[in-house]
């Protein structure tokens, strides 16, 4: 498989009043062509920050990025802003959680997609035809009519379709979908995910899916990376993570999913709370809630343990975690 994107010890820190706040710490990942990699985690775990760091969409005044973001072997962190403009949309497309925020309210849905196509120096007529084509490709009902509508006249699902059409118009090699269906009904969510998965297959696009929804992940992802408080705690194929979660956090989290009726017992809960990012410096950030934690966990970053193949988890106590797993 051909490697498309590689994050190499990526860290993102924000400068705050007294020092630095570490939002993402030492994340290393690879994403191959045609693959769906899901970054999952609870709010504040840094999953969106990773996505924005790849696209260099962070606020640009108080952050410090270290490590590398290699897209087809080239380090995007070294690119100038002018070079990045050519990457965004053309090479890496992105769709966001709330499409209404991403669409211009005073232009028709169709003309916003046409605008994206015109960037590639195509004729107006051709842009119109391509847009119509794209609208039907994303299963927009009555595409010609919807092109003449304003974003506020469209339903949430249709707006997200416009965003997908816009993203597709430039035919990117990598798609970053940041919580693409969070605001939608389950039926519409399923339709949108079906469209994304079909497009992935037809165009062999790689997808980086950012979500907190384990249901979507289990249905669509090839591989999963689990984040907690800015650290990558475990990664592996969807089956490795769902069948044999090894990091204590992943294990507890998966047991907190409502998968059985209450008569079969209560859901697992995780005691304690996520640490404030201003308080953490070194060490495993899950340590204060971890049943296996010892002194070392609070002072040194945990090493990455390989469990063969792509299954990696970060923990000081490899053997204990494996043994605990079998309890």
């Amino acid at each position, binding site marked *: 498989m051909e490697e498309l994107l590689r994050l190499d010890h990526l860290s993102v820190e924000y400068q705050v009043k007294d020092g630095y706040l570490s939002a993402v710490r030492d994340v290393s990942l690879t994403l191959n062509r045609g693959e769906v990699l899901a970054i999952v985690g609870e*709010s504040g775990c840094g999953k969106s920050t990773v996505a924005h760091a790849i696209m260099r969409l962070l606020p640009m005044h108080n952050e410090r990025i270290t490590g590398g973001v290699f897209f087809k072997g080239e380090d995007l962190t070294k690119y100038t802003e002018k070079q990045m403009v050519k990457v965004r949309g053309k090479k890496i497309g992105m769709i966001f959680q709330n499409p209404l925020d991403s669409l211009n309210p005073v232009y028709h849905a169709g003309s916003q997609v046409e605008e994206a196509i015109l960037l590639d120096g195509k004729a107006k007529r051709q842009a119109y035809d391509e847009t119509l084509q794209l609208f039907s490709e994303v299963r927009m009902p009555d595409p010609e009519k919807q092109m003449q509508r304003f974003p506020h006249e469209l339903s949430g699902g249709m707006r997200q379709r416009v965003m997908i059409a816009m993203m597709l118009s430039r035919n990117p090699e990598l798609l970053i979908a940041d919580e693409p269906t969070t605001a939608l009904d*389950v039926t519409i969510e*399923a339709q949108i995910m079906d469209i994304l998965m079909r497009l992935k297959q037809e165009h062999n696009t790689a997808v980086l899916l950012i979500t907190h929804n384990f249901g*979507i992940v289990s249905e669509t992802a090839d591989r999963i990376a689990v984040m907690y408080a800015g650290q990558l705690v475990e990664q592996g194929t969807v089956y490795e993570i769902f069948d044999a979660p090894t990091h204590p956090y992943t294990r507890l*989290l998966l047991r907190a999913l*409502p*998968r059985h009726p209450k008569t079969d017992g*209560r859901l697992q*809960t995780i005691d304690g709370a996520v640490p404030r990012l201003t308080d953490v410096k070194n060490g495993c950030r899950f340590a204060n809630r971890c049943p296996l934690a010892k002194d070392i966990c609070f002072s040194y970053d945990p090493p990455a343990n390989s469990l063969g193949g792509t299954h990696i988890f970060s923990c000081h106590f490899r053997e204990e975690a494996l043994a605990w797993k079998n309890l």
Partner: protein
Amino acid sequence: MEKPVIELHGLKKYFSISKGLFGFGAQQVRAVDGVDLVISKGEIVGLVGESGSGKTTLARLILNLTKPTESFIRINGTDISHAPRRELKKLRGEVAVVFQDPGGNLNPRLTVGRSIMRPMRIRGVSRKDAYEKALKALEIVKMDPMYMDTFPAQLSGGQQQRIAIARALVLDPQVMILDEPTSALDISVQAQVLNLLLDLQEQMQLTYLIITHDLNVINYVCDRVFVMYLGKIVEYGTSAEVLRAPAHPYTRGLMAASPNLNPRSREKNAERLSGDPGSLIKLSPGCRFAPRCHLATDICRREDPQMREVSSGHCAACHFAESGVTTKEMSLSL
């Protein structure tokens, strides 16, 4: 059978959206259109459906925040829709509510303590008693008393939802309406809140009506489930039964769309629903689901299907419910 806590029959709520010239051509949104619902004491009942299906309007009707167009609602045998004002005040205390977005439903300028005390203070409980009770309520939702003096903005989403639950509990309600209680929360927090709700229900014999679109949550907490589509109940039964063998094609579609928590059953549920839920304004005659239904025939477009029993206590409003065409076994996330 226990005596019903909530009872409503043929309940309707129409909203007028345009009067038209001299009242001609007036348009109505039929948000709730002939709903029957009977909930016994101590039951946990789920209400599912897409947005715009009328779930929240139904909840508002039960809370007496809006008056029905037709029929009435009985809470513990008393008709709340036509009760005199004085009695209403007492009745309102019996039905409590917890909303989806806890941050938006707590007054940002009131401390947690004052928010929890407020319903009691309005009812003339002395400040001292109200304070005592608020402390107790905090303890019940497993929060430290030190939070009495904090403001909602200083709390996390899960903590805010606990406060909302504590506030709902202080008037000793019999019924709690939970409108998407966990959809804004993270998974681990969702588990905490759901467990808390189950514990409270057991300890206090509460009755819950949980409105959600998450079938996994329904599967975990609910005894029975009602499925709503465009203002009507299309299927109901015990949640085990409905989720194992859904009889209405809409329920089947919802289940197919609902994310499955087992990656090994990816291809199993392929019966996707297409299209959006229709509009509640221009309703065609016949079954409301017919335009999206793959089983629809002429009779569906002509006649509105009646509720029919599929098995004991499990009913569906579909012309083909009994024929077995619709009941193929499905499994959710197991």
